[in-house]
């Protein structure tokens, strides 16, 4: 496996430093008057949800390239992004109920936002399962699931505006108090950086696995000839 390069080392270092600085900024941000301290979950919950959307779109892009052009590179991109979608979806679906339990008094509500987000996570888990256990057609089946997942993303995002839900609306971030913005955007930049680093490493691993599989076939051929 080739070296990951200076860019990766710089990004990983910046992410490590960010994990020291961003919590301090979040603690320094003013308290929300209605929800109080528990609102601070927002600073990581929203970036994680955004990374779930980003991963799903990247996965769908790779899936389109694989399904319609037979691109192996597209398939590797989709596989890497699919795994990150499950990871960040899990972070979103765990931190949300922790916030909801204090703010709404319940862990879960079957409203449009929460249900569609859970559905998206389940589709992405199905994507990984189809890839791993789907047999020879597994990669094509999972690519189709990746496309379905991308169709669910706009529904998850707009659900709070279309239907009446207990979840805050999409206007929360644009109308954020100016004193809360540095903490929010620094947390967002940190999570985006972490996503980028993880995606780079995961993609490299996927490439190395493909290389290894191809080399194995060559060695088997060579041993047969020998």
């Amino acid at each position, binding site marked *: 496996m080739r070296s990951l390069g200076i860019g990766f080392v710089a990004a990983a270092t910046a992410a490590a430093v960010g994990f020291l600085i961003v919590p301090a900024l979040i603690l320094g941000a003013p308290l929300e008057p209605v929800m109080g301290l528990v609102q601070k979950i927002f600073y990581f919950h929203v970036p994680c949800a955004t990374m779930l959307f980003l991963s799903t779109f990247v996965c769908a892009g790779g899936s389109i390239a694989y399904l319609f052009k037979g691109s192996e590179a597209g398939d590797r991109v989709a596989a890497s992004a699919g795994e990150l979608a499950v*990871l960040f979806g899990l972070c979103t679906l765990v931190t949300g109920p922790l916030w909801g339990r204090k703010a709404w008094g319940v862990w879960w509500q079957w409203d449009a936002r929460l249900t569609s987000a859970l559905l998206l996570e389940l589709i992405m888990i199905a994507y990984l399962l189809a890839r791993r256990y789907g047999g020879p057609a597994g990669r094509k089946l999972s690519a189709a699931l990746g496309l379905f997942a991308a169709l669910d993303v706009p529904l998850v995002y707009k659900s709070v505006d279309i239907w009446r839900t207990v979840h805050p609306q999409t206007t929360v971030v644009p109308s954020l108090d100016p004193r809360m913005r540095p903490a929010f955007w620094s947390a967002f930049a940190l999570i985006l950086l972490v996503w980028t680093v993880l995606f780079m490493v995961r993609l490299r691993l996927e490439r190395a696995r493909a290389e*290894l599989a191809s080399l194995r076939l060559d060695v088997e051929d060579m*041993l047969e000839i020998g």
Partner: protein
Amino acid sequence: MKNRNRWWGRGWLPAISVLALLALAPALAVAQEFQKVSGPLREELPATPFVAAAYGFIWIALLAYVVLLARGVGRVRKDLAELRGKIAEQADRGGPRP
């Protein structure tokens, strides 16, 4: 006589219900009263454990994923080294190269 007994039997149930309601009425009234808090007001659900659990989960999940990735990279490196060893061995014997 038979009809009178039936009437008597039917009359018992409503009478007992009314008496039971009369007896329970003060208790029900007390249960619906608001009571003044004595001493400082305590919050039922403190926010700190929820915030700590949320941040802790994100950290642990990311760390676990990094460990999984590192294990995957380690396995691939080991397999590549084994394959390279086999290729070198074959080359030493004068066999074909991949």
